[in-house]
């Protein structure tokens, strides 16, 4: 540590920090834009600005990763920019692009999910005639040639609209950027205090985002309260863990904790109590196993684009942090605590799978599936080997894109005023909209882990790493759970393809260009990582954590 961290303390390595600085700086500018811009122009400016920030930050990550610059610890040792960290940053920023697009989309429901005043909008549309509303929200039943129809449909709706376009909560853009900045810091944090601050920076905007939907206000706010209270509860555990580890090691630097643990100095009670509490907080964020209770409620209640952002990005950030903590701080004592986490991983897989079967709402089903997947990912985390690290990183990338695509598709299937969350709404979807049904089936097969999808490659990477590290029972449980979980993914496919649609069943919205791009991106990456995963696997295995 010594000399290097001192030199870093004097001069900040801006090259290494660039992506983080860009995102957090962009978030601050975004807040200013919110204050300065006139209302009518906020949405377009904020959207373009946020996308630009994310893309530039992504470019900075790619430049950094390809430049061959070595791993460094920056800001007096509080952040570590190393190869896995860069991969996590790249993943987060890449996932943020479709998330931002979906958040900003206004084509799927009139005015977008975050419309400021749905009643006023509905009245305005009432005035110009019911026709425009219908053509916007229900669209044409055929899914072929989605793009052209979609444009026509929306133009028909937009033509006679009132002069002021519907307002939306443009605060979501700075929120997303702050959350993203927090996630970047969280996955690169090299000491526990930074990790805690980053955890709050990423969580607080997410709590608010959950509660911002105006149409299903009660559900949305209920989700926000639940998420907030349980999230704050979990951060308190995390923090107490930090305090105990500080008491144990005299420092919150991950590498120092590892060094203390290697020496015979203090009682291990503090070390393991601290680890346990720390892990509770982290597992909560990653929605693992018995700490998943918020997941289904929040996934279902939050606006779907927020769910997509949260499901994909939070998981990446949280598991990034888990990987780093396990590897850097507790790698030397792995044998002593791993048994407990075996139980957690098994619990997570079993809970996610078994409860997933009983679900009748697709978003809740995705939530339970995410709990099961968290268990699979945990297998990779527990194998503290290079193969486990690269497998986990790859899994996070693959899972994130698949989830975003699924939730994007879910947001398209609508009945009446909102999304048709209930599974029965998906009956005969293939006849109403073959493209949406095919894309959804593909993504569900990816979650089930059928070969030639990213889900299989990821599962293979994680399971082989687990088995190589002597975790055969975990791998077997994982395989059995995969098989059981296949049942409920398949049930949706069966409904979509082999059932007859209900006459008054839900309609399929025609996505605007932004949602279309987001979904296409998700599906394309899912396919690409299944067929040609080499490049991603190589980047994921490019290096190890720097302590």
């Amino acid at each position, binding site marked *: 540590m010594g000399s290097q961290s001192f030199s870093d303390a004097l001069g900040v390595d801006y090259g290494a920090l660039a992506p983080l600085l860009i995102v957090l700086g962009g978030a601050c500018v975004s807040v200013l834009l919110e204050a300065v811009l006139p209302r009518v122009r906020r949405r377009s400016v904020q959207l373009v600005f946020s996308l630009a920030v994310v893309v530039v930050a992504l470019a900075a990550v790619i430049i950094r990763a390809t430049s061959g610059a070595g791993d460094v610890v920056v800001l007096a040792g509080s952040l570590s920019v190393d190869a896995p960290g860069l991969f996590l940053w790249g993943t987060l920023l890449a996932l943020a692009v479709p998330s931002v697009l979906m958040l900003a989309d206004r084509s799927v429901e009139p005015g977008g999910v975050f419309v400021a005043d749905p009643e006023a909008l509905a009245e305005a549309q009432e005035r110009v005639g019911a026709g425009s509303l219908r053509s916007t929200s229900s669209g044409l039943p055929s899914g072929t040639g989605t793009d052209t129809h979609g444009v026509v449909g929306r133009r028909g709706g937009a033509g006679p609209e009132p002069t002021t376009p519907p307002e939306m909560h443009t605060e979501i853009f700075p929120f997303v950027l702050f959350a993203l900045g927090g996630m970047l810091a969280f996955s690169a944090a090299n000491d526990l205090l930074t990790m805690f601050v980053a955890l709050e920076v990423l969580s607080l905007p997410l709590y608010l985002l959950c509660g911002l939907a105006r149409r299903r206000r009660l*559900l949305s706010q209920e989700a926000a*309260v639940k998420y*907030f209270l349980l999230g704050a509860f979990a951060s308190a555990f995390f*923090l107490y863990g930090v305090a105990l580890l*500080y*008491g144990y090691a005299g420092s919150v630097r991950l590498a120092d904790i590892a060094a203390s643990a290697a020496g015979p100095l203090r009682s291990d009670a503090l070390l393991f109590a601290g680890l346990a509490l720390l892990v509770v907080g982290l597992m909560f964020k990653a929605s693992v196993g018995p700490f998943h209770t918020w997941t289904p409620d929040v996934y279902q209640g939050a606006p779907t684009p927020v769910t997509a952002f949260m499901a994909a990005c939070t998981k990446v950030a949280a598991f990034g942090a888990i990987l780093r903590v396990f590897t850097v701080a507790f790698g030397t004592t792995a044998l002593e605590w791993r048994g407990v986490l075996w139980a957690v991983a098994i619990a997570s897989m079993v809970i996610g799978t078994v409860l997933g079967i009983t679900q009748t709402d697709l978003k809740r089903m995705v939530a339970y599936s995410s709990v099961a997947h968290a268990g699979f990912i945990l297998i990779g985390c527990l194998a503290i080997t290079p193969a486990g690290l690269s497998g986990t990183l790859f899994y996070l990338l693959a899972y994130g894109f698949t989830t975003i695509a699924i939730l994007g598709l879910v947001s398209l299937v609508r009945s009446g005023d909102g999304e048709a969350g209930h599974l029965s709404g998906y009956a005969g979807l293939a006849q109403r909209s073959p493209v949406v049904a095919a894309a959804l089936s593909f993504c569900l097969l990816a979650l089930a882990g059928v070969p030639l999808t990213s889900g299989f490659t990821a599962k293979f990477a994680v399971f082989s790493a687990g088995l190589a590290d002597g975790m055969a029972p975990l791998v077997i449980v994982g395989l059995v759970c995969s098989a059981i979980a296949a049942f409920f993914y398949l049930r949706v496919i069966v409904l979509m393809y082999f059932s007859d649609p209900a006459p008054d069943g839900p309609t399929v919205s025609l996505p605007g260009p932004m949602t279309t791009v987001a979904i296409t991106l998700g599906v394309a990456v899912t396919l690409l990582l299944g067929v040609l995963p080499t490049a991603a696997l190589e980047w994921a295995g490019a290096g190890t954590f720097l302590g």
Partner: protein
Amino acid sequence: MSPTNYLLLSALLFSIGTVGVLVRRNAIVVFMCVELMLNAVNLSLVTFSRINGSLDGQVMAFFVMVVAAAEVVVGLSIIMAIFRTRRTASVDDANLLKY
């Protein structure tokens, strides 16, 4: 007085906070219990700082206070919003999202 006693007090406060979160119904009270937990941690941090003979723990306590303040802002605003639509702050009444 041995610093260990402060640690015990801290653990006690943390437990009280935990139990409060688990058993209380009112969202505001639940939230206050979370704050109690955070402050219990602060006590630990300061005590460990004393035991370890370094100032890091005390600095961390300041971080925690700032973060807790931010959390209060966000939390109260969410609770206010739900109170306005529902006219209640009981977490038991928030039961639309189930199974």
